[in-house]
């Protein structure tokens, strides 16, 4: 509100200044129609603007003057000297009032009625003028604002940008001379340039309020139009952002808000049915995080229908049906950013006009930003826009790789460590892998590899830059050298350069050579690390031909037997080293103890390993399995063209990696194999066994449990829910509860048909699984 008042004051004062000449001229020639129009426009504008605020005096005065002038314009009145002086008195009073508004001082004269009366056709004419004269000159100079054309600011900004470049160049040359005095003198220049740049940058900053201001009206109009009720909550309007950036996100934000109302939030009746309040909630929230602005747009609507998107994507040929099956829920939701996939069943007036979320994403990415979408069915969608604070100058670290210099935005850098330094371990087998920095294990990306260059001859001389790209997980980037911290003027790169997916822009280094600014999220995505960005499928759909066959990222590793296998990286939760003591053959299977957890161990056959092994901890979101292996070979996009295995097993099939065969782990089979036993909390069928029998309690019970049942004692609370009741054949007939199967177990090796020998494991399991003991069937037949 303060901003708006200040705008009003500035605008009114400006108009007054421009008008002063007109007023004098009008006084001399009251019949001059052009002058009259000018003055009429002024009072009209002031009247209109003052209506927004609680400024009754200004409003009353300007209203009266407008009425009188309108009468003159329509010819109902003539502009005599009396009217002219009355209008001028009002204009003077308006100037005073505006000034008082700015300084916060009260006006001596509180009564405007005399001035207004003077306007009337037959009022006393002379008395009013003297009163208007006193004016507070001192207050007028106190706080001043000026209005500038933004082009001027832009020109200054680009001038300062070039100045920074020239300074960097000069700094390099002066440092080379080694002249201490010169360096000291130049440092002062340098600091001044930095101050100047800060100042100019700030002049271009605007409160993000400006972006939010039209939203309430828009939300009201749109929701009214389509019969929905939407409450809008806005937060963080005081965050400041570069003017240019503000303009760049205006359209994406508008579009997202429209979408949320049009497609996200349901109609009142539907909301009521879903047990929600009739009025939907739309939250727009801005906050600053480092040198990024986060904009979150949250609605509590129906969410994005991922499956519908998938079927459309298949219909549009964006993904194959086979690949679609492998998409995670997040990847499905991310399809909303694909061109031509709007989920609305019908194209609506509001948002289905061919401008889709793909345009939103393109616009945001063009300015170095990111869009994330998170959807929960029935609960709503959160869209997060991350945009840099400013476009032009960023602090950066310059690094070397294969003899070339690259820049990394410092905002993404968490830490820089030397490979040789303490607490750092690089497990680099075959060129890919992981870095452990003070016990923290991170995925490692070799910059040289990302750039398609030869690996470094001496990896121990490299440094690791730990990067936390916006919206993604921390990873380590191995570079050859660390050069310098520099302020770089970043220019957008040409589309042909951006297409590489590795760069965020270009810049010129101190020595005048162009430098590529690396894009940390892009590099992570290329290396298959980031799962937060749109799916690899999306990348393939938008990038040119060579990348077309990319699947989700997979980890290529060598098994303990020396075989090369692949596992989708999404299933790998982490990699650990374990000592052989942690592994034990128990219950017929290998288990490994990892701290407090005991996990089934696969990949080692049935032999307890005799040396330390490495484990992949595989997870499906609920369960975990450890998979022993020898070493990591690479992380790569899952190749297409799977040759399925002939029999179900640990291996789903074979794919070609380069010219080598690799077996793809069948995660479904692996998890299914361990499925029943480690699903805590899941509803398991209940089996009732006789109580007080040592065989039943100590020997049978674990077997039944391992087959996936909760075991209760017959007759105990909960036993009525049992779907299987086990009874001893020797104890005579036991009543089976309604809806339960009875399995009778005998102690003797031979005995009554329909019962199962207590140590006939297979028959027992078959009976539990409901296949029914074969002997019972024989008796019937």
């Amino acid at each position, binding site marked *: 509100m303060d901003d708006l008042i200040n705008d009003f004051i500035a605008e009114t004062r400006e108009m007054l200044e421009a008008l002063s000449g007109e007023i004098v001229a009008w006084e001399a020639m009251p019949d001059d129609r052009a002058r009259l129009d000018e003055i009429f426009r002024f009072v009209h504008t002031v009247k209109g603007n003052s209506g927004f605020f609680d400024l009754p005096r200004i409003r009353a005065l300007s209203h009266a003057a407008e009425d009188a002038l309108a009468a003159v314009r329509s010819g109902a009145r003539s502009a005599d000297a009396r009217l002219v002086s009355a209008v001028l008195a009002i204009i003077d009073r308006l100037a005073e009032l505006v000034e008082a508004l700015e300084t916060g001082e009260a006006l001596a004269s509180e009564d405007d009625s005399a001035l207004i009366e003077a306007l009337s056709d037959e009022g006393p004419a002379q008395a009013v003028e003297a009163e208007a004269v006193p004016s507070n000159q001192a207050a007028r100079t106190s706080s001043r604002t000026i209005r500038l054309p933004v082009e001027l600011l832009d020109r200054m900004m680009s001038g300062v940008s070039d100045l920074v470049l020239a300074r960097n160049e000069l700094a390099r040359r002066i440092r080379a001379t080694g002249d201490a005095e010169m360096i000291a003198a130049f440092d002062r220049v340098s600091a001044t340039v930095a101050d100047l740049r800060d100042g100019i940058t700030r002049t271009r900053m605007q409160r993000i309020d400006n972006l939010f201001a039209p939203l309430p009206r828009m939300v009201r109009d749109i929701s009214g139009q389509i019969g929905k009720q939407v409450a809008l909550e806005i937060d963080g309007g005081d965050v400041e952002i570069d003017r240019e950036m503000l303009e760049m996100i205006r359209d994406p934000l508008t579009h997202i808000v429209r979408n949320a109302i049009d497609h996200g939030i349901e109609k009142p009746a539907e909301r009521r049915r879903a047990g929600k309040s009739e009025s939907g909630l739309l939250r727009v929230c801005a906050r600053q995080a480092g040198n990024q602005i986060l904009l979150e747009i949250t609605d509590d609507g129906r969410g994005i229908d991922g499956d519908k998107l998938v079927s459309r994507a298949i219909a549009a040929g964006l993904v194959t049906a086979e690949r679609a099956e492998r998409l995670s829920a997040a990847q499905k939701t991310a399809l909303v950013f694909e061109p031509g996939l709007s989920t609305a069943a019908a194209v609506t007036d509001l948002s289905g006009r061919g401008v889709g979320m793909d345009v939103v994403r393109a616009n945001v990415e063009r300015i170095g930003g990111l869009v994330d979408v998170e959807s929960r069915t029935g609960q709503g969608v959160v869209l997060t826009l991350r945009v840099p604070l400013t476009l032009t100058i960023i602090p950066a670290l310059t690094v070397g790789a294969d003899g070339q210099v690259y820049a990394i935005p410092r905002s993404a850098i968490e830490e820089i460590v030397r490979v040789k330094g303490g607490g750092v371990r690089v497990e680099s087998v075959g060129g890919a892998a992981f870095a452990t920095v003070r016990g923290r294990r991170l995925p490692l990306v070799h910059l040289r590899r990302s750039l398609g260059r030869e690996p470094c001859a001496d990896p121990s001389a490299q440094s690791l830059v730990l990067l936390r790209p916006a919206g993604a997980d921390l990873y380590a980037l191995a570079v050859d050298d660390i050069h310098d911290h520099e302020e770089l003027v970043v220019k957008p790169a040409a589309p*042909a350069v951006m297409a*590489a997916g590795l760069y965020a822009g270009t*810049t010129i280094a101190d020595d005048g050579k*162009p430098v590529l600014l690396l894009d940390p999220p892009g590099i992570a995505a290329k290396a298959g690390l980031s799962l937060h960005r749109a799916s690899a499928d999306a990348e393939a759909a938008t990038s040119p031909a060579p990348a077309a066959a990319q699947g989700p990222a997979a980890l290529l590793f060598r098994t303990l037997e020396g075989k090369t296998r692949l596992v989708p990286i999404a299933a790998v939760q982490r990699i650990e080293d374990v000592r052989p003591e942690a592994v034990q053959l128990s219950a017929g299977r290998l288990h490994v103890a990892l701290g407090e957890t005991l996990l089934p161990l696969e990949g080692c056959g049935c032999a307890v390993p005799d040396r330390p092994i490495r484990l992949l901890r595989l997870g499906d979101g609920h369960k975990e399995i450890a998979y022993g292996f020898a070493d990591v070979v690479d992380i790569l996009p899952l190749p297409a063209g799977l040759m399925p295995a002939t029999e179900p097993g640990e291996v789903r099939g074979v794919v070609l990696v380069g010219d080598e065969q690799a077996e793809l782990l069948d995660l479904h089979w692996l998890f299914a194999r361990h499925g029943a036993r480690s699903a805590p909390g899941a509803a398991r069928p209940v089996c009732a066994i006789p109580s007080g029998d040592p065989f039943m309690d100590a020997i049978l019970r674990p077997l039944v449990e391992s087959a996936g049942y909760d075991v209760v004692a017959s007759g105990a609370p909960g036993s009525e829910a049992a779907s299987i009741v086990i009874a001893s054949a020797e104890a005579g007939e036991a009543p089976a509860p309604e809806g339960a199967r009875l399995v009778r177990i005998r102690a003797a090796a031979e005995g009554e048909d329909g019962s199962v020998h207590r140590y006939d494991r297979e028959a027992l399991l078959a009976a539990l699984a409901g296949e029914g003991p074969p002997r019972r069937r024989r008796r019937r037949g």
Partner: protein
Amino acid sequence: MAELLLIVRLGGERVALPAADVESVVEIESLTPVPGAAGHVAGLAALRSRVLTVIDCLASLDPSRRLPEDAAEAVMAVVDGHPYALLVEAVEDVVEASGERQPAAASLTGGWRRIGRATVEAEGDLLLLADVEALIAGPAREAA
């Protein structure tokens, strides 16, 4: 007024570029490679405080060919606000077209068909008028 043409040598032929599309003729001294970019992107070069994206026009014409390492003559053009330097075998001259543009012959082959916009006559020769944007786009976009 007759159209002004900039004559360059590309793939052993004399090729015309519309002078109106050309900002200047520059000499590229050193190139900063752009790993990962398409083959016809030769790299980046600095021109005062601007970064030029340097296009190897021979590679743009025919993905299997490259201009020699020492190629330095380039034509500068700005497309969509991005400055480009189009490396060619040689920059010859600016001449006046002696007639109107004519539709390019359907018999153009390979990359020529992609970059040729029209034919135009100048100094008694029939020249292919190449499209600056097509040269910058290169072969990849055409395939998509």
